[in-house]
């Protein structure tokens, strides 16, 4: 099976869906001539032409709102946000218009858009460019939220997202763009709302997603090597819909749960997970649910300090050892 980068996997998904459906159009800042700020869309302009691959001005509320309006007529825009951090300047369009229009019209209108781009810290770009808004987005019924961690999942999930008739928020990661993995060259789908056990184990369940999942896998390796602790690692892959059943099944096997998230803790995704695990598997737990989040402050610039602010293998390791007791 070909081994390709995460960014290439996304590009393949875009190219395949652009070829499959003439209503799919890719819009965003620098996606065409510049080839994408992170080179995700490289080559698509040359292959599909300027009608399908559209450079926009720096005008997120304008072009995202425009994409929503076009989707009501059956166009299927896949809109790149150069950084998900910029969701704040188009919040009204995403979370009033895209999220609510189906509901407020009594189900008469569909909004089949995908908004995609990176949402992560860890690149020393400071607080304005390091937001991870999956919790904010998922707080709005009407939108779906996906956070792929691997190249395989990124391709399969994006293709599912583009075919979905609901608005899908697709959160990538600049640090993962260069990660490589096995990705089939042919058409395949990873359904939204299906978690994936990325590593099997017996002593505790680590639930995570996105880059924090990659860090959790590294921590699980260290736990086994250095402490003889067997951690199972569950990748949520999508936040809403949420496959809590796979999480609960794992917790019923290991009886301990550690939630790891690149999220500020207050009202983060981990808070929802911890609530659901205790609510639905309380009797299975041998210890309180543990949670490892981003250290609760705006994202710090200083490179060594930012590593300590985010989930990293050592922080996860310590949290796991504390949970095992």
């Amino acid at each position, binding site marked *: 099976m070909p081994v390709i980068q995460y960014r290439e996997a996304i590009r393949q998904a875009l190219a395949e869906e652009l070829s499959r459906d003439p209503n799919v159009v890719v819009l965003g800042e620098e996606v065409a001539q510049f080839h994408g700020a992170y080179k995700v869309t490289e080559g698509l302009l040359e292959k599909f032409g300027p009608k399908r691959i559209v450079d926009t001005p720096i005008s997120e509320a304008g072009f995202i*709102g425009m994409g929503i309006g076009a989707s009501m007529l059956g*166009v299927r825009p896949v809109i790149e946000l150069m950084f998900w951090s910029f969701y704040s300047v188009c919040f009204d369009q995403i979370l009033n218009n895209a999220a609510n229009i189906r509901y407020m019209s*009594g189900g008469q209108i569909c909004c089949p858009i995908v908004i995609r781009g990176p949402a992560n810290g860890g690149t020393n770009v400071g607080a304005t460019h390091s937001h991870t808004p999956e919790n904010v987005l998922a707080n709005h019924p009407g939108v779906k939220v996906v956070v792929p961690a691997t190249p395989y999942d990124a391709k399969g999930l994006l293709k599912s997202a583009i075919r979905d008739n609901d608005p899908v928020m697709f959160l990538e990661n600049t640090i993962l763009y260069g990660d490589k993995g096995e990705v089939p060259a042919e058409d395949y789908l990873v359904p939204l709302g299906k978690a994936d056990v990325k590593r099997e184990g017996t002593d505790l369940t680590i639930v995570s997603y996105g880059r924090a999942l990659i860090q959790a896998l590294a921590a699980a390796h260290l736990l086994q090597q250095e402490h003889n602790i067997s951690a199972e690692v569950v990748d949520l892959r999508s936040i809403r819909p949420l496959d809590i059943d796979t999480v609960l099944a794992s917790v019923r096997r290991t009886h301990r749960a550690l939630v790891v998230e690149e999220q500020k803790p207050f009202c983060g995704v981990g808070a929802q997970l911890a609530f659901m695990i205790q609510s639905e598997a309380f009797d299975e737990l041998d210890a309180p649910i543990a949670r490892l989040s981003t250290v609760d402050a705006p994202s710090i610039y200083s490179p060594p300090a930012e590593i300590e602010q985010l989930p990293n293998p050592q922080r996860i390791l310590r949290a796991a050892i504390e949970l095992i007791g």
Partner: protein
Amino acid sequence: MNKKSSATAETQGEAAAAKPAYAGAPVNAALPAEEKIRLYRLMVRIRRFEERSLRAYQAKKIGGFLHLYIGQEAVAVGCCSLMGKDDHVITAYRDHGHAIAVGMEMNPLMAELYGKSTGCSKGKGGSMHFFDPARNFWGGHGVVGGQVPLGTGLAYGLKYKGIKGACMTFMGDGAVNQGAVHEAYNLAALWDLPVVFVIENNGYSMGTSQARSTAGDLARRAEGYGMAWGVCDGHDLYEVRAFMDGFLDLARAKSKPSVVEVRTYRYRGHSVADPDNTYRAKAEIEEYRRTKDPILVFQNLLLTEKVLDEAQVEKIDAEARAEADVSAEFAEASPFPGASEIQKDVYWEADNPSERKSGGRLFFN
């Protein structure tokens, strides 16, 4: 004429001052008499519908806000009367007039105001959120200016699909200072999208007059984007049609956007909750009612043209009142949505379970 029972008994005959010149504009000269009567009837129906809804609101049958369009009827009816099958409309929260102008029936509209499951949005949208995509009417949007990028997107969709249509994107004068509006202007001009931005200038953004909110001329801002623009009075339906026709053609035929300002006036407050006595004089409202009422202006024109006679005026008005009363009875008799309805129409997938591809939970209680 019998002023007491005419459609605009509250006004006097001075409104006949409307300029007859617009009746001769090609787009109006071509109107058959029955079509003129239909347009007149639409305006009367909008007014009687809203007056009836106001009584229901005062009787606490309707929740939330109620933004009435009374006084502005010639704008929605004039503009929407020019729609071809591929033309689209989107507007803000003062949307009752546009809904009726595109052909929506009173029953589902009144039921929506009452929060009933027979409402046009099943009681999920309310006054500010009427929709009828089958009639190319895309709402009904609550946040000032928020619908303007959507209207631009409808135009983008038309162009993308190679359809020769236009999207009339309505907004109030208060919207012109919102950033989203300017972002939409830029995209429309940059990409030659077939959109007509229609600013319905009723003089007040809530309680703040244009003079206190907006620098310069409203539509002239189009010049900064290289767009065509224009201003007209919105009291005479013929004038609105004559004015809009060219801008719609520009969009349809040449895919060129434009910004138009239609000067109009609302008699009621920003919403019914608005005390309406702090920012404008009663005499001002009375002056508009007396001299520029769009229904009386058009009524007088049609009487002069002998398209209507007084008996017809009276009959149309009585029918509109009766229709509005029936719609209130329909709304009253309709059921409220049950608790089981709350989580429907949120996700397409949840509403179409046999076609659902995703797994997991979509709802969290």
